[in-house]
């Protein structure tokens, strides 16, 4: 009996501690609101940011940029992680509707599956803007994403330059059907076609480093002649790098990735990777927040906002 109560008490306290610790940011503006009514509407503004996952550096950067933005401006940003589960994502959106947030920045786990959540937000009259991945349903005020086609062209043209206009190239594709896979591949192939360079192998490694390694191992077995590899993200590029290294061909095959993850940037600095295309998740986040604030204020916002990319090369 005593033990039961002590454990229940401990749980409750744990909850209380967590509740207190995190509520400081949200309580402070509420106190201000009482003091002066004019400031109240601006100060009490809360927006939600629903992320698909926090196991990828890209989304962690978005989270951290949003937190920094909130700390700097006093805007409340509720950040929720969906653990790559569309069901969890729709629950997160429902919880934010309950919280009556003023607007939502949404990065779908899947463009189709998120449609119901967007419809729920429409029904609740909460403005929604998508970042990075678009939604195939419901009404989204604006979509803010990297110009992936331009990035693919950028990577492709750099490979053409490295090879001096001739050679054999391998393309490691992302998750089939994902917009990043389609657009990056499209841009890359535009550059290849323009230069007349042959893509000797084109296979998916699902954006995963482990698969990048095994798929590249297999391609190395099958293709005696390879001059360059373009991977739709850095994880696959780094996996391919391991395979090329193990085959003792690291000097002869140029590797270009996408995303400019910390590991890839380091590999470019060391010269083990030729280049990577940098998305700017921080710029994407601030653009997203500012566009959303404009929309909440009743201004019309552009339907899509492309965010620039940059080539990181030695």
């Amino acid at each position, binding site marked *: *009996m005593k*033990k*039961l109560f002590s*454990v*229940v008490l*401990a*749980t*409750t306290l*744990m*909850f*209380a501690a*967590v*509740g207190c610790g*995190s*509520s400081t*940011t*949200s309580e402070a503006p509420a106190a201000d609101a009482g003091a002066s009514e004019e400031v109240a509407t601006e100060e009490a503004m809360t927006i939600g940011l629903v*992320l698909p996952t*926090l196991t990828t550096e890209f989304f962690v950067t978005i*989270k951290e940029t949003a937190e920094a933005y909130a700390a700097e401006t006093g805007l409340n940003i*509720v*950040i*929720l*992680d969906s653990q*790559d*589960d*569309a*069901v*969890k994502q*729709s*629950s*997160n959106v*429902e*919880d*934010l509707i*309950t*919280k*009556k947030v003023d607007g939502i920045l949404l990065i779908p*786990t*899947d463009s*189709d*599956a998120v*449609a*119901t959540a967007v419809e729920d937000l429409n029904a609740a009259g909460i403005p929604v803007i998508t970042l990075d991945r678009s939604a*195939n*349903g419901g009404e989204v005020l604006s979509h803010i994403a990297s110009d992936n086609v331009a990035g693919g062209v950028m990577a492709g043209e750099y490979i053409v330059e490295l090879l001096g206009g001739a050679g054999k190239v391998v393309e490691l594709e992302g*998750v*089939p*059907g994902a917009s990043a896979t389609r657009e990056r591949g499209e841009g890359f192939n535009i550059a290849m076609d323009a230069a007349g360079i042959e893509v000797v192998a084109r296979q*998916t490694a*699902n954006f995963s480093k482990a698969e990048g390694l095994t798929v590249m191992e297999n391609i190395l077995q099958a293709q005696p002649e390879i001059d360059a590899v373009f991977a739709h993200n850095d994880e696959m590029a780094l996996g391919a790098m391991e395979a090329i290294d193990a085959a003792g061909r690291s000097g002869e095959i140029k590797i270009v990735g996408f995303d400019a993850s910390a590991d890839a940037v380091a590999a470019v600095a060391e010269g083990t990777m030729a280049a990577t295309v940098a998305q700017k998740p921080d710029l994407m986040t601030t653009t997203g927040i500012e566009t959303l604030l404009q929309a909440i204020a009743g201004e019309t916002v552009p339907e899509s906002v492309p965010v620039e990319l940059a080539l990181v090369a030695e």
Partner: protein
Amino acid sequence: MRKSVSYYVEKYRPIIILVVFMIAISIMRPEFLQPSNLSNVLRQTSVNAIIAAGMSFAILTGGIDISVGSTLAFSGAVSAYMVLNNYNIIVVILVTLTIGVIAGAMNGLFITKFKLQPFIVTLATMTIFRGMTTVFTQGRPISFKSEGTGIMYRFIGKESLFGIPIPIIIMVVVYILGYYLLNHTSFGRYIYAIGCNEDAAHLSGINTKKVKFMAYVINGCLAALAAIIVTARLSSAQPTAGDGYELDAIAAVVLGGTSLAGGRGKITGTIIGAMIIGMLSNALNLMDVSSYYQTIIKGLVILVAVLLDREK
């Protein structure tokens, strides 16, 4: 007197924990008790609760089924495909449930006929069903629009009857049937008997193989039922759907006071366990708890519940 108080605490422990939880949460976040939020929480809980109901049967026999998440993914993918191709809604539902039944029967067959460990069998089928899902979907989500069968199908996930969301109604019906089966039929008593002592149950004339087989069939069928709700709710079947759901279901069963050793526990505890897990995620979201901490807290709550269980 003392004895009787502790008796009741013992008997209603899961519900006491749930009530303490709800009070604690609603003090910190009054919006938690809004009817719209409670209805959200229950709907969010329904999928895990339905899977956990099936899991209760497997665990009460002393077994386990970790293939339910993959069963959900595969049956959901097939149902989305059929909706997309405008099959009759009744056919869609029947075929989806049948897939669950076949998946469960496969598990049951290997566990009873070939006397293999439930964990190993379902570990294998988990991988197989996930692979079948990837092959069937070609790694892409299968999505359908609100037209033809899609209209009816979305209705299951989105709409309400008498003001109650349909997933909640399905969940309640599942638990009423589960309660009846376990507490008012000989089949239910056999389940408990097998969980307590399989050899003794066998010697006293119970067809233990048949009963265990049926437990896994029920489990598979309920996973497919959950798949219908998930797919209808999202208008889309994800190849990665249900990943990790088996763990949430097992956690719900254990939180509800059922012993993993089998033979002891109640299905009413399971629904409370599922509600605690569902309310926990909802409350942590409402309280702005950082996503990084949410999973830690969820794990701690499960540990605390197991600690309470150990006290006996």
